[in-house]
C-alpha cells in the first residue's frame, strides 16, 4: 500500500476534526450550564457571550438551596440507591435461577419474560397507577422502588452473566453441605460482582434521571426528586429562572458525571453487554 503523504495528513485532519466537533458539541451544554449558574441575571443573554463572568456569584445557588434543592438531591439519591440495591439483588437471584436450575416450563417462562421487554411503559403506566393508589403507596417512594425490582432486562443480563460460571463449582459447594441459598450468597455473589456493578450503574443512572415515575407518584414538594424539583421550580419574581435552573441542572448532573468518570469501564461494559447479547 502506498500512501500519499498529503492525503494521509488531510484524512487525519478530517478525522480528528469530526471527533473534536462531536466532542465539543457534547461538552458545550455542560460548560454553558456551569457558566450560567454563576452569572448575574443580566449577563445571561448578552452579546458577545460571556463564559467566565466577572461578577460571579452564588446567589443562584442560595436561591435554590432556600427552595429545598438539597432535600431533592437527597431524595433522588435515596430512591436511586434503594432501587438499585433492591433491583440487583432480585435480578441476580432471578438470573441465577434461570441460568443454573432446571425446572419445567423454564424456557417458556424465560421467553415470556423477554417478551415483556417489548411492552412500552405507557401501557402499564395507568393500571400500575391505579394499583399503587389502591395499595396506598401514593406519594411514597415505594412505587419507584418495588415495581421495577425484578425487571426483565436485569434478569436477562444476569442470566447471561451467571451462565458462564462452571457448574462444577456449584456442585462442589453442594457436596460440602452448602444450602442452595447459601450457594447463591457465598459462591455466586462474590463472582458476579463486576456484573452487578455494571448493572447497578445502569439502574442507578436510570433511577436518578427518572422523571415520569416521580411525576405521577409524588405529590408533596418535600419528596420531590431533582427532575421534578426542576420542572416545578419558579424563578425569583420578575426574572426568568435560567440561572436557577442551571444551578439545579448542575446539581443533577454532577454526581452522575463523577460516578461515570470513576466507573467508566464498568459503565461501557454494561451497556455493550446489554446490546451485544440483545
Amino acid at each position, binding site marked *: 500500500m502506498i500512501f500519499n503523504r498529503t492525503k494521509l495528513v488531510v484524512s487525519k485532519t478530517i478525522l480528528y476534526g469530526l471527533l473534536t466537533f*462531536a466532542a465539543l458539541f457534547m461538552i458545550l451544554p455542560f460548560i454553558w450550564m456551569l457558566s450560567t449558574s454563576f452569572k448575574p441575571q443580566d449577563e445571561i443573554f448578552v452579546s458577545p457571550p460571556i463564559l467566565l463572568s466577572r461578577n460571579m456569584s452564588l446567589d443562584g445557588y442560595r436561591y435554590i438551596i432556600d427552595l429545598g434543592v438539597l432535600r431533592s438531591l437527597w431524595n433522588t439519591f435515596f430512591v436511586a440507591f434503594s432501587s438499585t440495591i433492591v433491583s440487583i439483588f432480585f435480578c441476580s437471584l432471578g438470573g441465577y435461577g434461570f441460568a443454573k436450575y432446571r425446572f419445567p416450563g423454564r424456557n417458556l417462562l424465560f421467553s415470556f419474560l423477554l417478551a415483556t421487554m417489548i411492552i412500552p411503559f405507557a401501557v402499564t403506566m395507568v393500571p400500575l397507577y391505579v394499583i399503587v393508589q389502591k395499595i396506598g403507596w401514593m406519594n411514597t417512594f415505594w412505587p419507584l422502588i418495588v415495581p421495577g425490582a425484578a425487571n426483565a432486562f436485569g434478569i436477562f443480563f444476569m442470566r447471561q452473566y451467571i451462565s458462564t460460571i462452571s457448574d462444577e463449582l456449584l456442585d462442589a459447594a453442594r457436596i460440602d453441605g452448602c444450602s442452595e441459598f447459601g450457594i447463591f450468597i457465598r459462591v455466586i455473589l462474590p463472582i458476579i460482582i463486576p456484573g452487578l456493578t455494571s448493572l447497578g450503574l445502569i439502574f442507578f443512572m436510570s433511577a436518578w434521571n427518572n422523571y415520569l415515575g416521580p411525576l405521577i407518584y409524588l405529590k408533596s414538594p418535600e419528596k420531590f426528586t431533582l427532575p421534578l424539583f426542576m420542572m416545578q421550580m419558579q424563578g425569583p419574581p420578575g426574572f426568568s429562572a435560567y440561572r436557577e435552573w442551571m444551578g439545579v441542572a448542575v446539581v443533577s448532573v454532577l454526581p452522575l458525571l463523577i460516578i461515570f468518570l470513576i466507573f467508566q469501564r464498568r459503565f461501557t461494559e454494561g451497556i455493550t453487554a446489554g446490546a451485544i447479547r440483545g
Partner: protein
Amino acid sequence: MEFVGLKNYTYLLGVGGKAFWQSIQNGIILFFMYVPIMTFMAIVLAVILNSKLVRFFQGYRTMIFAPYVTSMVAAGFAFRLLLENKGGLFNLLLNMLGLPGIPWLENVWWARVSLCLLVVWGWLGYNMVIMLAGLQTIPRELTEAALIDGASPVQAFFYITIPLLRPVILFSVILSTMGSFGLFNEVMALTNSTAGPMRATLTTLVQIYNEAFSNFQFGRASAQAYVYFVLIFVLTLLQFRYFGRQE
C-alpha cells in the same frame, strides 16, 4: 370502573383522537429526522475511534458518551437556554457569522429540529459505544484484505463494515424507533406538556400521559396506550423481517 365496550377506541376515530394521531405522526416525523443521521454518525465516529488512526481514544469516548448519563430534564433546560430566541448562545453564534437568528422553539419545524438536536446530543454517545462493541466482532484481517485488494477505505466501509454491523444497527434502530415515540423527559423539559407550537413535539408517550393525568381520562389513555403498543410491535416486527435477515 365501568365497562364501556369499545367507546374509548371509537373516540380515537372521531374528533377527539386528533391529538393522539398527531402524536403518532410526530413520532414518525421525528424518527426520520434524527435516526438515520444519528445512526450513521454513530457508526462513523465508532469506526474512526476504532481505526487506531487517532489517539486519545479514551478521552474522546468519554466526552462523547458523557451526555448519556445526564438527566434529560437538566439537559432539556440547558438546551432551552442555548436555543433562546433572543440571546441564546446558538443564535448569538449565528449572528456572529452574519446569519439571522432562528426561532428554535417557536416555529413548528424548528421546534422539532431542536428536539432532535437534544435527542442526538443525549443518545449519540450510547449508539457510538454499541457500534464500537459491534466493530470488535469484525476481524481486522477482513478489512485489511479488502484494502490490499485495492478497495479504498470508503469502499471498505460501505461494503464490509456496514453489512457486518447489521445486527448492531438493527438493535440501535429498533431502540430508536421505540425511543422516538417514547420521548418524554426531553419533550417536557424543552417544551412542557403543551409540546410546542401546534403540538409540534407532542410524542405519543406525552400524549398518553396528558390524557391520563391532565385530562383524567384513564380509559382513553389506556386505549391509546394499546394502539401505541400494537404500532410499536408491528414496526419492530417489520424491522426484524426486513433488516434482520442474515446472509
